[in-house]
C-alpha cells in the first residue's frame, strides 16, 4: 500500500538502466504516450461546450479502426443497448459525448499505444484486469449510492501507468544494451505505476480528481480530494485480481481476503453487500470475454 515516486532500494536494476530512469523521473522527461489522434480529439471535443455530435461523427469517421472498435464496444454487454446499433451516426448521436469519450479511452488502452512488442499477452492480461476493476468499481459505487461514472473511469485507468513503464524499461534496457529482466522491471513498475498513471491522465486532459484517485489507489486514506473513489478502486482492484488473475503475477487474493478487506470498514460495506458483489463475478467475466 505505497505510492512511491522512486524505485525501492532493494530493487536491483542494472546500474546504467537505474541511472537513466532516475534521471528521467527527476526531470519529468519520461515519455508519456499520446492518445491516438482521433481519441485525443474526442477527449478535447467532449470538453467543448459548443461541440455537436455531427462534428464528433465526422472526426471518428477519419479513423476506420476507431470507428469499428466503437461499433463493437457500443453493442457489447458493457453498454447493452436496447436496440442493435447499426451505424456510426446512430452510435454517436445517441450515446453522447461523455460515453463516446469513455469508449475512446477503452479503445486507446487496447491500441498500439500500449502494445509493448514481445509482451502483448502480458499487456492484454493487464487490460482485462483493468476492465474488471472498472466493472467492479461501478458496482461498488452503485451500492454506495455514489455516482458510477468516475468510479468506472478510475477502475479502467488505475493501472494505466503499468504498460507505459514497461515500454520505457524495455527501451532503457535496450539502449543500455542489457538483457531485459521482467521480474526486476515489474518490481520497478509496481513502485512507480501510480505516479506515472496519474501524470498520464493529466497529460490526457482528464479530470484532476481522476489523477488523484489513481495516484492513491494503493493508499486511499492519503487522498485529500478523491478518497472515496480511491477506496472504491482499491477494493475493485482486489476483486478484479480475484476474478481475472494476471498472467504474470497473480496476486494472493481469495474470497476470504476480500471479505476481510480493509476498505470495507471505510466504505461501510456490510457482509451481505460483499456477497452481492461476489455474485457478479461470472457476469463481469462474461462482459470482459466479449470485448477483450
Amino acid at each position, binding site marked *: 500500500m505505497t505510492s512511491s515516486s522512486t524505485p525501492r532500494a532493494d530493487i536491483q536494476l542494472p546500474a546504467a538502466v537505474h541511472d537513466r530512469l532516475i534521471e528521467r523521473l527527476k526531470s519529468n522527461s519520461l515519455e508519456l504516450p499520446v492518445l491516438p489522434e482521433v481519441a485525443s480529439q474526442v477527449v478535447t471535443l467532449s470538453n467543448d461546450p459548443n461541440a455537436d455530435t455531427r462534428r464528433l461523427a465526422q472526426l471518428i469517421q477519419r479513423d476506420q479502426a476507431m470507428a469499428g472498435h466503437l461499433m463493437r464496444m457500443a453493442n457489447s454487454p458493457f453498454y447493452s443497448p436496447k436496440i442493435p446499433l447499426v451505424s456510426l451516426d446512430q452510435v454517436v448521436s445517441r450515446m453522447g459525448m461523455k460515453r463516446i469519450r469513455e469508449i475512446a479511452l477503452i479503445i486507446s488502452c487496447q491500441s498500439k499505444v500500449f502494445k509493448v512488442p514481445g509482451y502483448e499477452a502480458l499487456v492484454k492480461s493487464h487490460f482485462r484486469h483493468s476492465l474488471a476493476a472498472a466493472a467492479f468499481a461501478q458496482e461498488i459505487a452503485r451500492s454506495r449510492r455514489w455516482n458510477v461514472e468516475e468510479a468506472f473511469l478510475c477502475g479502467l485507468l488505475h493501472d494505466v501507468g503499468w504498460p507505459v513503464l514497461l515500454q520505457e524499461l524495455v527501451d532503457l534496457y535496450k539502449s543500455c544494451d542489457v538483457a531485459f529482466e521482467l521480474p526486476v522491471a515489474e518490481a520497478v513498475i509496481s513502485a512507480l505505476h501510480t505516479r506515472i498513471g496519474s501524470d498520464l491522465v493529466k497529460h490526457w486532459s482528464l479530470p484532476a480528481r481522476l489523477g488523484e484517485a489513481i495516484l492513491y489507489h494503493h493508499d486511499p486514506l492519503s487522498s485529500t480530494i478523491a478518497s472515496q473513489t480511491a477506496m472504491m478502486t482499491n477494493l475493485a482492484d482486489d476483486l478484479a485480481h480475484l476474478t481475472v488473475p494476471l498472467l504474470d503475477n497473480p496476486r494472493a487474493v481469495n474470497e476470504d481476503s476480500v471479505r476481510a478487506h480493509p476498505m470495507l*470498514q471505510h466504505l461501510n460495506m456490510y457482509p451481505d453487500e460483499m456477497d452481492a458483489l461476489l455474485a457478479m463475478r461470472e457476469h463481469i467475466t462474461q462482459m470482459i470475454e466479449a470485448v477483450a
Partner: protein
Amino acid sequence: MSDSEAFDVVVIGGGPAGQHAAVHAARSGRSALLIEREASIGGACVARGTIPSKTLRETALALTGFKRKSGDVCQMSLGEDIQVASLMTRLEQVVSAHQRYMQSQLARDQVQMRHGRARFIDAHTIEIGGVDGSRRRVSGAIIVIASGSRPRSPAEIPVDHAHILDSDSILSMTYLPRSLTVLGAGVIACEYASIFASLGTQVTMIDKGERPLAFLDRELTTRFVEAFTAMGGRFLGKRSTASVAWDGLGEVVTRLQDGEEVRSEKLLCALGRVANLENLDIGKAGLTPTDRGLIKVNDQLRTSVVHIFAVGDVIGPPSLASSAMDQGRRAMCHALGQDPGVPAELIPVGIYSIPEMSQVGLTSDQATERHGGCLVGRAPFAEIARGQIAAIQDGLLKLVTDKAGKRLLGVQVVGEGAAELVAIGQMALITGQDVDVFISNTFNFPTLAEGYRIAALDIAHQRQQVPTPAPVAGA
C-alpha cells in the same frame, strides 16, 4: 435481557434526532448507547443531505453572486466539463469539522457509540451486526428509534446512480450535466433544481402539483418559479409521469401522461423519502409500521410499546433537522418523566433553494381560514437599502397579522438570508408581540432586517386606511 450489555437508554441512529436523545439521556445521568450503521455519525443530514447540498449551494451562489454583484462588469461561465465535486471543494472539511464536533460532544457527555446495523431481538434487546460480520447484543430499559430515512425510489423509476440519480448520488455526479430533469417539487427537488439551473444546467422540473412546495405561502412559490424560469428552468406543474428510461445510449427519456417527452442527460428522482426500517425487524419489538412505512407515535413521541420512542424522519413530517433535534430531546424528557417545556408549535421552515425561502407561523391563507381575515404587510427587498447594495432586489418579506392589523400571526421571506431573517419574526411570535414592535424599535442600517419595519409600516398604513379591515383572501 441476559447475555447482553445493558444500558438505561439505547438510541438507534446517530442523526440529529438520535444525538439529541442520547445526549439528553446522558446529561440526565443515564447510561446511553448510540448505534450508528454508517461509518460516522450525523445521519443523512451531514453525509448526504443538508450539509453537502448547502455547500454546493454556497458555491453556486458565490459564482452567480460574483457576476451579479459586480453589476455584470465581470462575465463568467462554467466549463462544460466542470465536476460537481470540484464545486464542493470545502465539503470534506465542512463535514469532517461537523463530525468532529458532534463526536466530541457525545464523548464529553459520555455517550457510548457502536458502529453497526441494529436489529430487534425482542422489545428490550438489540443485536448489532458489524461491517466485519460480528454480532453482539445490547439491551435498553428505554429505546429510541431514530434510524432516519433514505431517498424513495418508486418501482417505476429505474434509479441506477449513473444516469437516473437520487438525492444521494447526485452529489457525486462526475460532471455538471447540460440538462437535468427533476421529478418532484418538494424541498429537495426545488433546492437541487434551482442550484443546477443557477450553474447553467437546463433544468426541467415535473410534478403533479399545480405549484412547487404547496405548504409554503403562494407568493413565495410564485417568486421561486419566476426566479427559476429566469435562470432558464422549466416547471411543468399538474403533469404526471408515464415512464422514465435511460435509452441505453445518451439520454434519459421521461414520457408524460399527456404524451410530451422530456429528454435530458441526467434525471433526479426526488419523490420523497422512506423510513429506514427494513433491517430493524421492529415486529420482534411488538411494533408494526404504518401503511406509509412509518412508525406511529403519540404526542409524547411514544410508540405503541411503552418504553420505545421514535423520533425524526421515521415518524414522518415535518422531517426537518431542526424539529428532529427537538423531538429527540422531548422524547427523552417524556421517557425520563421530565417536563419537556412548551411544545414548539412555531417551527420555522427553511428552503435552501435559489432564492432562499423561509416562513414561520401562519400564511395569509391559513390566517384567513382560522381568524376570518388578516392584513398582510410587504417589504420588497428593492425598497431596502441593503437589498440594493447586495443586488438582491427580488426578495420579499411579508408579515401577516390578525384583521385588526395588530397581532402578529406569521412571517414569510423569500430572498438571500431568508432562513436567518425569519428568526426575528419567530422570536416576536414566540413572545406574542404586536406588529408595532417592529415600528417602535430601531434596526441596524443598512440591513435586511429593516424589512420588518417597512412591512409593519405597510400594515399600520392599511390600518389607518381601513378602520375595520375586510378579510384579505389569498393575499
